[in-house]
């Protein structure tokens, strides 16, 4: 699993870390049941604050990608297909916002497709 950080990027560091983990899951470099590196270890290797990594992990947990277990750290639980689906959804939403659609508009469009 390769995680890259651009410190001069407008994208927040924790989001870059989360993107790296998602990509690694999509590319099947890590799979369900695999343990992610400890937050402290990853923070040290990337030269960032440990809370930045923890924030990335918390976001991934809220998305259902990983689970935080006491004593075992962060473990991947998200199915690859589901993670992939969420990633494409996120891209669609970003596109929609870029052309000026509101959240309500996006939901309406989605409902139309369904």
């Amino acid at each position, binding site marked *: *699993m*390769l*995680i*890259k*950080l*651009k*410190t*001069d990027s407008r994208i927040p560091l924790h989001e870059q870390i989360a993107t790296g983990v998602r990509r690694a899951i999509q590319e099947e*470099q890590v799979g369900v049941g*695999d343990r*992610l*590196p400890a937050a402290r*270890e*990853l923070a*040290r*290797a*990337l*030269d*960032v604050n440990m809370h930045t990594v923890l924030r990335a992990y918390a976001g991934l947990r809220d998305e259902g990608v990983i689970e935080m277990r006491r004593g075992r750290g962060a473990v991947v639980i998200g199915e690859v297909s589901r993670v992939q689906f969420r990633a494409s959804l996120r891209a669609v939403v970003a596109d929609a916002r870029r052309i000026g659609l509101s959240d309500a508009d996006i939901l309406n469009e989605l409902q139309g497709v369904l």
Partner: protein
Amino acid sequence: MNDRAGASTKLLLWLPGVIAVVLLVAPLAIRDRLPDPLAIHWDLSGAPNGFGPLILIALVSSVAVAIAWVVFLRTYRVEMLQSHAGAMVWFLAILMGGMEAFTISANLDRATWQDAGTFGPGRAAVLVVLAGLVGFGVWRVLGGNMSDPGVAIGPAPSAGVELGEHAVWVGKTAAAKGFVGIALAITVGSAVAAVLRLTPVVTLSLVVTALPLLMFVSLRARVSNTAVTVWMGIFGVPRVSYPLSRIIRAEVIDVRPLAYGGWGYRIVKGARAWIVRRGEGIRLVRPGKADIVITVDGAAGAAGLINDVLMTEGRFVAADSS
């Protein structure tokens, strides 16, 4: 290979078979001069404290050497493996032969096993060292110190990490299921032996076998912009770190464990290898020092990041210019 070298190799190859037969026949040939049961175990002061039937001693040592010898004959055509199998059979032949010789001389012409002479830990230690030296000699003679046989696949890769980016690569790999199964079986066996309070020798040898196996069932690796770190086995011990400052290039290679003489931590001429399974791995090229070979899944990512870091620091050296 000249005739003399051929003859000595033949001797190395066939003599263990002769030793296996002698180990079985010799004690039986002089059984009239030995007590039955005879002393087979001594305490730390060298006094006999265990006994067994004569045939047991003869069979155990002979069969152990015979099995190792058959493995040696079967692996003789496999590069590298022959030197390890040869070292093993000769180590066993000297150890078993010496133990049997000491056991017989301690029991010779005694009425009962309690009257047997002493066999202290000093002699046992000398025997182990002697067997180790002979094993090492055989290993050297059979080409155990050959060069790193790993073949680089394609040019040194890149992971697309650019100047100003921080990056980390983490990866792992696990041994084949059969290997993991054997390691677990021996571990369970040693736990059972400890619980059943089998003889310390049995328990200790099982533990000594189980520990290195558990050490090599899996491997975890991390590449940061300063070092490559490897954690071995389920305990993460040993943990070794190789600073990038000594590395000039990382290559993806196809690792064939048998070509390195097996699994685990292997030493070949010019390289040190951490081998958990066959297949893809990385080679860290270190001028003036031994290269490092590590089996990891997603080797291209690991090697790519190392090369990118070296590239941004201006220290990368391509294969043809090194």
